[in-house]
């Protein structure tokens, strides 16, 4: 499949007062993919979405859709579908009238509207509530109605601004799966804004991790999780421990505090080289047995299906470990830790 770029952002800059919301952002969204903009609040992900939608005018840079420069084109001429975090359903209109809104603006005939609205409501499984007002719907139903309203106009791109954030956890997980299904069935190019790493990893074809108005890393969920490009990405996606180390030979490093460990990285190290290593908590092994490093528990968080344990090695290095079935542990308990050589990742 040849990857065709549908949305292209080139050097987008936007400031709010003294705040640089977007600092020269470049991004290409490929035909049919679901791309997540993932980052903490204030990283510029929603501003990016608003720039694509045409709600926010950047000070510098271009927005292209299918190669056409639309930077100066107002939102109502861009033909994009937007689902807002608050859903933004029109409270004075019924569900069907909400969905029909965009069709009416396009001058569709009455029979076209009736047919398209019925199809759109069927797509999101909302057939029974067409005559209700948004206020009479549950959060999940409002979310579907907003999705139907955005999709019914056959937008070139679907923009989703934290569409699941307002739902409770159980519903959020259901809607996440359903959203993915619908997106795939429609085959629409989608930009999805979220601060939730699970959502981003679970839904996306590609994830753009944003920080301070720029993209730190763009890649598949697997890439950003397993090969984080920067300490920020490593830290934001998955709670991990970043360690500064000094290479002693091609595969042995000394971590601050004099701890020597073997690492297996894709490249041989040069002795004396300083490297920054990352270890995911699920790769840190804790328990008892021969050859384990002596450590002490400094914090325990029981989370049901797993337990997060903070440990401090005798060398003073602190690590986060997750344990599937942990014996009851308490702060101060002695514990053994093993750091497998292939558990270390190098951060550029």
């Amino acid at each position, binding site marked *: 499949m040849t990857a065709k770029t549908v949305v292209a952002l080139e050097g987008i800059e936007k400031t709010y007062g003294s705040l640089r919301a977007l600092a020269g952002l470049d991004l290409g969204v490929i035909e049919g993919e679901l791309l997540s903009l993932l980052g903490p609040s204030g990283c510029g992900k929603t501003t990016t979405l608003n720039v694509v*939608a*045409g*709600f926010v005018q950047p000070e510098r840079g271009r927005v292209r859709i299918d190669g056409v420069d639309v930077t100066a084109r*107002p*939102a*109502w*001429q*861009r*033909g*994009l*579908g*937007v689902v*807002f975090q*608050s859903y*933004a*359903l*029109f*409270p*004075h209109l019924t569900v069907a009238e909400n969905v029909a*809104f*965009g069709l009416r*603006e*396009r001058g569709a005939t009455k029979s076209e509207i009736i047919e398209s609205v019925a199809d759109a409501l069927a797509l999101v499984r909302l057939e029974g509530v067409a005559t209700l*007002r948004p*206020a009479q719907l549950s959060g999940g139903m409002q979310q579907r109605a907003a999705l139907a*309203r*955005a999709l019914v*106009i056959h937008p070139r791109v679907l*923009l989703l601004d934290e569409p699941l954030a307002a739902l409770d956890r159980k519903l959020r997980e259901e809607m996440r799966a359903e959203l993915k299904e619908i997106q795939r069935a429609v085959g629409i190019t989608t930009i999805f804004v979220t601060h939730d790493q699970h959502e981003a990893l679970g839904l996306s074809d590609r994830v753009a991790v944003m920080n301070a108005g720029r993209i730190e890393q763009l890649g598949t969920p697997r890439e950003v999780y397993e090969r984080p490009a920067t300490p920020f990405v490593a830290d934001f996606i998955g709670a991990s421990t970043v360690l500064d180390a000094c290479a002693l030979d091609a595969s042995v490093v000394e971590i601050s505090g004099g701890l020597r460990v073997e690492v297996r990285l894709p490249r041989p190290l040069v002795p004396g080289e300083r490297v920054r290593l990352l270890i995911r908590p699920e790769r840190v092994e804790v328990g008892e047995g021969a050859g384990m490093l002596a450590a002490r528990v400094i914090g325990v968080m029981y989370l049901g299906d797993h337990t997060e344990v903070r440990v401090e090695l005798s060398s003073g290095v602190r690590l986060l470990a997750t344990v599937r079935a942990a014996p009851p542990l308490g702060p101060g308990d002695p514990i053994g830790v093993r750091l497998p050589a292939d558990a270390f990742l190098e951060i550029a």
Partner: protein
Amino acid sequence: MIGRLVVALLVGFMTLPTVVVVVASFNPTAILSFPPAGLSLRWYENALTYPQFHRAAVNSLIVTGASALVALPIGTAAALALVRRPLRARGFWSAVLLSPLIIPGVAVGLGFLILAARFGLLANHVVLVAAHVVLVLPFVVRSVAVSAANLDPQLERAAQSLGARPRRVFRRVTLPLLRPGLFAALLFAVIVSANEFVVSLFVSTRVTEILPVAMFTYVVNYTDPTMAALSTLFIAATFAGVFLADRVLRLSRILRLDDHR
């Protein structure tokens, strides 16, 4: 117990003048007195047949209707601008728009009178309408601003993303959602304008004077209960108007819709 008593006294105190006027209007004698000496409708007849009241009632309809018609769009635009736009001088403009509430009516009236005399505008309703627009505007701005502040800007963005240009967004989304505020504004405008006296007194002539001014002129010259009868009719009409408006425009439904959002 004491609380209830205080409330009862307060309500009594507030309604007492109205009650006195209503009762006095049925007095058969030619002198405004209380309690009445009997029951009669002769002053109602007098009020309804007095020619100057007819003329004044028509003037009132013209002035109130025209000032509401002018003040509503201006006030709505001003309210939206005050709520939405990051105006640097928002406080200043807000103060200007609300200033007619603070400036004494005599001052406003005198000002309009000087201007009207200078430009020879006292022969028709123009100055009266202009004065009423100014006096009604603070109420319109306030009422609409409350609704506008409750309006989620995302709704307008949603409409835009669906292909609606700004004028269509205003017609299909903004305006319908401002309805409770617009209705309240209209109600305030009509009530304030219909009861306005001080400023109107300055800029009215015998030909253009509105009902409150005509009533004042009458009461200066005659002391019979005609005025009480007319006041009673006025009160009844206002009540009927608000009640009807509530029924026809289903004010309560509109307001409830606002709560749901």
